């Protein structure tokens, strides 16, 4: 006979064997009453909830409207991208990593490619570097506009949402003209870029540069001076520099706490040290400061885009080494984007060796000398780090992504415990996590 009685499934011995009777029961009858049970309420928010910034799940312990405990549950968007890269070539890796933080695809691509190039020991041509900076800063504006749009939506300022997405579309139109796609571009490749800028796109970019400052000013007019917006954001989601460093928080959240830590300045890559721009900071360490920092950063990005367009000079956008460089530039044909017709004519009709070379490089890929590197860049959300390991083969041995959203989201509990439940939303919106990056 058993010595313990299962409270849910009592059992008795019969001639047929042991028979279990499964029953339910109330918590207090089973485990005794909790003296605080009347005050304590556990609320589950998400993962499908319009205010949790994606498929994020929050489990909140409440006393009245005060949050006593905030637990964050993630993993609902896990797609195993890191594992999948181990079964694809180094070049195909770009197509995978761009889908992690889907609001900052060009940052993922560039960080990955910089890591691969560090392993290879190569440096990309000047024009490719300038275009990388150009598209990254356009991407930063688009990403911050979505950040502000969802911020507005979650605070109930729905016009902020519609305006943010409308202005973002202007940026995405330009990115579409450059890369062929609005998102998930796979434009930055190990060794350079998939293709050169299309003719006449400089005019489009300059048009954007004249339109955008007015749109940012309109964002200010809509939200910044608005009393409700200010009262929802000021002194909410407080996290000072000490808290940020302990929790590993970087990006606008850290800069809003007063530390001007921006990898574009402190560890320049892609030639950022030659551009003239400021690192906006705030000293409020709250959601309000983070909002102001993001708006100011869009203005700085516009400055960098302008400088990048000015210094564009003709030249190659892929390394010279034919053992690494993708054999063809992409071009627009009658049936969409593909290899340029000149290249197809060359390999199919003129040169057997070129065909073999193309085939080997596209199917097998290039080899990367064994070793490991860590490459970090400043994404719109903070330090985006790629730890890439090669075993000397044609595929990555391991790619680990230190995604800023993943790390920053850990600060949710520190920002929201002890505050009101409504402020939890403001705190998370001010972190601006992208769940595609958190879960990878």
């Amino acid at each position, binding site marked *: 006979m058993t010595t313990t009685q299962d409270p849910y499934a009592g059992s008795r011995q019969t001639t047929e064997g042991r028979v279990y009777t499964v029953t339910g029961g109330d918590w207090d009858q089973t485990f005794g009453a909790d003296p605080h049970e009347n005050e304590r309420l556990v609320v589950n928010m998400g993962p499908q909830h319009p205010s949790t910034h994606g498929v994020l799940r929050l489990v909140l312990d409440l006393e009245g409207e005060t949050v006593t405990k905030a637990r964050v549950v993630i993993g609902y968007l896990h797609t195993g991208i890191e594992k999948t890269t181990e079964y694809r070539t180094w070049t195909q890796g770009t197509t995978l990593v761009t889908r992690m933080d889907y609001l900052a695809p060009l940052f993922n691509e560039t960080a990955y490619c910089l890591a691969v190039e560090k392993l290879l020991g190569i440096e990309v041509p000047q024009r490719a570097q300038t275009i990388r900076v150009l598209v990254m800063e356009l991407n930063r504006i688009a990403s911050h506009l979505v950040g502000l749009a969802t911020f507005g939506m979650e605070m109930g300022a729905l016009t902020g949402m519609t305006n943010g997405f409308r202005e973002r579309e202007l940026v995405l139109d330009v990115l579409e003209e450059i890369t062929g796609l609005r998102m998930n571009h796979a434009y930055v490749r190990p060794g350079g870029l998939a293709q050169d800028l299309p003719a006449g796109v400089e005019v489009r970019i300059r048009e954007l540069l004249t339109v955008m400052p007015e749109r940012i000013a309109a964002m200010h007019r809509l939200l910044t001076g608005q009393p409700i917006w200010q009262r929802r954001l000021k002194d909410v989601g407080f996290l000072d520099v000490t808290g940020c460093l302990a929790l590993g928080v970087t990006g606008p959240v850290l800069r809003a706490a007063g530390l001007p830590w921006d990898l574009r300045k402190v560890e320049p890559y892609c030639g950022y040290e030659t551009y003239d721009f400021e690192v906006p900071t705030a000293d409020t360490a709250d959601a309000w400061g983070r909002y102001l920092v993001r708006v100011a950063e869009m203005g700085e990005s516009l400055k960098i885009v302008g400088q990048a367009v000015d210094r564009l000079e003709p030249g190659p956008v892929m390394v010279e080494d034919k053992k690494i460089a993708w054999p063809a530039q992409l071009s627009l044909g009658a049936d969409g984007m593909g290899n340029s017709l000149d290249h197809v004519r060359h390999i199919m009709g003129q040169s057997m060796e070129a065909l073999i070379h193309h085939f080997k490089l596209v199917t097998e890929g290039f080899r990367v000398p064994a070793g490991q590197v860590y490459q970090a860049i400043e994404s719109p959300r903070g330090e985006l780090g790629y730890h890439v390991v090669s*075993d000397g083969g044609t595929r990555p041995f391991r790619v680990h992504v230190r995604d800023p959203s993943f790390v920053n989201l850990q600060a949710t509990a520190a920002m929201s415990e002890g505050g009101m439940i409504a402020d939890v939303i403001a705190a998370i919106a001010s972190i601006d996590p992208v769940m595609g990056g958190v879960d*990878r």
Partner: protein
Amino acid sequence: MTDGFRRGAFGVTGSGDTSGFGGLVRVEPGGAVALHSTERPYGGWFDEVTDALVDAVGEATFAAAVPRVLVDRGEITYFVDREHLLTLVQALRDDEALRFELCSSVSAVDYLDSGGPAANTGRPRFHVVHHLTSMTYRRRIRLEVAVTAEDPHVPSVTGTYPTADWHEREVWDMFGVVFDGHPALTRILMPDDWDGHPQRKDYPLGGVPVEFEGAQIPPPDERRSYR
């Protein structure tokens, strides 16, 4: 073959080789990490940091804690014995000459057969990697702790760097490395009731063959791969 090198390609060996691929010598998977090390001087600020670390923890402890150092591609890696990991990270964060305030990332690599020479407790296939950043001096270093699949225990650095909390949960989830002293080591990305640790090299990628215009294409992990 544990000398860390792999010879030949496309299966070409012996005297029949006229392609030259039979003479190819490459580092084995993980060989660069597992078997190489750098001698002093390391160059640049690497010596400065190493000296400061020796001063902070004492020469005897350093010698026991860091059996090997590797400088490669402008990055320095300290291979750390797990018994001394917590002493080291505490000194790295708090010492005035070191000041590694930020733990950028904790992850792991599964080197399977090539993570290091076999001991009687098995091969050290899991290499747990800590990337530390000094904001004061603008430096980055890497600490690497190797453990075996039979005894996959590494002390948790959450006491020194609270940010390592989710990183270590992810490494547990993906590789099955146990971080002793972690406040709540549970799965983070995979469902709670998941079997196995997906990023281990012996965990299959999965996938089904795909029919396309009469041909059958095998799943990615069963396709031909190039050595």
